[in-house]
């Protein structure tokens, strides 16, 4: 009996253990059925702080765009347009004075921030004081350094009535509104009550805007949760909730999507895309992305002072090959510095076609029949160095011996922003904006590093003049022609090496509907629904 008793106890224990294991190991889908109306997005990195005035980077704006709005906004509900149209946001209309110096905004009535604070001219003034007015007690220096591309044009702000404000610029700039909606510090409206309650620094932990989604919680490194704003003034979001999950490892992102733990992932690994499509997942790309991947050449180096050498480098790189073999279906060769997401983009523009023989001949004419050695600085990113190795191989074919020097991202950013040292011949970045004025940031004589982002010291006064003229040209068609002419001049000088457009691939579960991949780095999630 005693033995039997032991056996009975043992068998009970085993049964209990199996029951516990079965409870733990159960089909994943049963728990997930509760998730209707919730979109879970696997992102390639953790985002920065959620204060739109004091942060930069497209990953962060993918969240803040849902919470905050500006006076004007880009309409991101259309994917098949060359550039996102500027539409009324928290201003119902605006008027630009004939001299281009004064912007008068009529504010949208009946709008409240998520905390109930009414949106009015006083709130607009408060926001401008926060990121621009050094004399204000609410001035936030960190915000000022981020929103500088927008605020450096501002001369003053006045409240005309409770629902109207006028902003005066120091000089005309017809790209000013669009410049405010780009990827480094956005002048979106934050709740004055929240800033006063939590302080300038504290707003990032308690982000309060007027957008279609409102902030619920953030667990650093785990998730950020937003929920639908039921009082939104415009088209209300379809989703109940959005959960943003940082999944840094590309394989983990793919696995999580395959296993149904997230509904969409950005930056999927190129090699996995076709397999995911075959498994029924949807690939979304944007034909008109607002950025390009390009190389800077160090024009202070003797070898690159010769335009024939710069042209040879441009002709030696097989852009089609890179797009086809590395980017698979998610890249396109790029031949100019204007990104496809700007209204000035010319898709028919071809600066230099792939021609290694002609490139070699040009090098010989320039006095380098046997090529030369060059250092190419590159950042450490998740995609490895496939493109850079390809470029290294292509340049080797015309005799240029490229040494790749790889740096961790922060170190690289410092070296890139500081301008190339004398020993460095090339570096790279993927950047751009939906305003064509962006090429002035990277290619004007007065934006040379270290006080600007012209890391390779390119300078052509004629280009500067064209870009300056374009800014003060109110007619969009005339401005577009000026930007295109500047772009042609820059590429005629071969001051840069445009390589490829990354078409912003997003992999979606078949359960996701209504997702639009617009000509911008961030998306409007109010149109999205999940089965």
């Amino acid at each position: 009996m005693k033995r039997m008793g032991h056996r009975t106890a043992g068998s009970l224990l085993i049964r209990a253990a199996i029951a516990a294991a079965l409870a733990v190991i159960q089909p994943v889908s049963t728990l997930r059925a509760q998730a209707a109306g919730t979109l879970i997005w696997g992102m390639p990195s953790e985002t920065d702080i959620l204060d739109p005035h004091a942060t930069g980077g497209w990953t962060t704006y993918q969240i803040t765009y849902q919470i905050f709005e500006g006076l004007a906004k880009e309409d991101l509900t259309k994917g098949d347009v060359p550039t996102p149209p500027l539409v009324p946001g928290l201003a119902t209309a605006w008027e630009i004075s004939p001299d281009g110096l004064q912007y008068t905004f009529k504010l949208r009535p009946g709008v409240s921030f998520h905390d109930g604070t009414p949106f009015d001219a006083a709130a607009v003034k408060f926001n401008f004081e926060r990121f621009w007015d050094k004399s204000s007690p609410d001035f936030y220096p960190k915000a000022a350094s981020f929103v500088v591309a927008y605020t450096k044009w501002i001369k003053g702000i006045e409240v005309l009535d409770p629902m109207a404000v006028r902003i005066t610029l120091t000089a005309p700039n017809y790209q000013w509104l669009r410049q405010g909606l780009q990827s480094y510090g956005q002048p979106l409206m934050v709740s004055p009550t929240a800033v006063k309650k939590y302080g300038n620094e504290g707003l990032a932990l308690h982000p309060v805007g007027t957008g279609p989604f409102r902030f619920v919680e953030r667990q650093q490194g785990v998730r950020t949760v937003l929920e639908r704003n039921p009082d939104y003034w415009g088209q209300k979001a379809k989703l109940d909730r959005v959960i943003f999950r940082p999944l840094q490892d590309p394989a983990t992102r793919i696995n999580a999507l395959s296993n149904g733990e997230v509904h969409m992932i950005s930056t999927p690994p190129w090699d996995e895309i076709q397999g995911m499509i075959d498994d029924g997942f949807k690939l979304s790309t944007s034909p008109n992305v607002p950025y390009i991947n390009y190389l800077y050449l160090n024009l202070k180096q003797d070898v690159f002072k010769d335009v024939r050498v710069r042209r040879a480098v441009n002709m030696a790189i097989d852009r089609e090959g890179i797009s086809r073999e590395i980017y698979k279906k998610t890249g396109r060769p790029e031949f100019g510095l204007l990104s496809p997401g700007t209204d000035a983009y010319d898709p028919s523009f071809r600066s230099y076609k792939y021609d290694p023989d002609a490139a070699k001949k040009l090098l010989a004419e320039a006095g380098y029949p046997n090529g030369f050695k060059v250092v190419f600085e590159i950042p450490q990113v998740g995609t490895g160095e496939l493109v850079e190795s390809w470029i290294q191989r292509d340049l080797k074919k015309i005799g240029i011996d490229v040494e790749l020097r790889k740096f961790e991202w922060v170190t690289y950013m410092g070296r890139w922003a500081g301008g190339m040292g004398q020993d460095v011949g090339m570096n790279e970045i993927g950047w751009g904006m939906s305003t064509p004025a962006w090429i002035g940031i990277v290619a004007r004589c007065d934006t040379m590093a270290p006080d600007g982002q012209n890391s390779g010291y390119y300078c052509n006064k004629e280009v500067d003049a064209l870009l300056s003229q374009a800014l003060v040209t109110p007619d969009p068609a005339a401005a577009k022609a000026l930007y295109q002419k500047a772009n042609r001049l820059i590429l005629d000088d071969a001051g840069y090496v445009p390589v490829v457009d990354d078409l912003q691939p997003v992999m979606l579960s078949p359960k996701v509907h209504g997702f639009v991949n617009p000509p911008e780095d961030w998306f409007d999630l109010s149109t999205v629904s999940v089965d």
Partner: protein
Amino acid sequence: MRGFLVRRLAALVPVLVGVSIVIFLLMHLAPGDVTTVLLGPQATEADRVALRRTLGLDRPVPVQYARWVARVAEGDLGTSIATSRPVATLILPRFLNTALLTATSLALAVMIGYGAGLLAALRHRSVLDRVLTGFTLLLGSTPPFWLGLVLVLFFALRLHWLPVSGMTDMAGEGGALDVARHLVLPTVTTALGPAAIITRLVRSSVLEAMGRPHVRVARAKGLGRGALLWRHVILNALPPIMTITGLQLGYLLGGALFSEVVFAWPGLGSLLYDSITARDTPVVQAATLLIALLFVMVNILVDLVNAALDPRLKES
């Protein structure tokens, strides 16, 4: 025993000070500027200088270190430069997540290691011994990130039994059961390597103890197998086993970092990675110190257990 404990705890202080100095210096010697990250590429040098002043980064490194030590002595770990959050609120939840993963992994490694090691020793030179020895050699040589991906492929993507990422189902209600489901694959991935090492050490220690003369004498005197094993073999074999188990904690913490990446487990490792790339010195400093403290404390605990088992250690 009290004196022994006091001596070991006193030795803790220079270790922690040393670790903190090394990390502080490394963070300052590393190229790259936190203000470039914080202010973005369009900031001017004047903006960067002003921010460095605000953050106190323009002061000499020894002064910065002294200020940090003074704050820590008052229980204030400072504020994260990158996230503006108090460091303690960032580190504590992540530390608990890592501690949970490390504890379950250690428990599994001990269960497998002690059981398989003892079995292999008792069935010395049998087929079972050879299978266990070979299998543990294979496991010990397997990189955890590869093992993790293989487990994911089989148990998550093929069988759909277990989740592949995170600590909880993001759309679910959470709870202990949900955490347990998410814990299975990272725990197995983290534990198998250390389990293999422990198995081999247990096997050799038990074999060594079994060959000692007093065991042969006890067996000749007719002592029962159970009593012989417990009193004369296992108790004598335990000190080196305990020491290697304690040392495995370091390996487990390292292995947990790999598992955190592969399984998106929100632990200290991923926080450290983010903080290093953001040059967030206060977070890096506090996190490393916590890991060092944990490692040293566990080894003190092992020393105490060993001293209790073998009184000669107390005297030495």
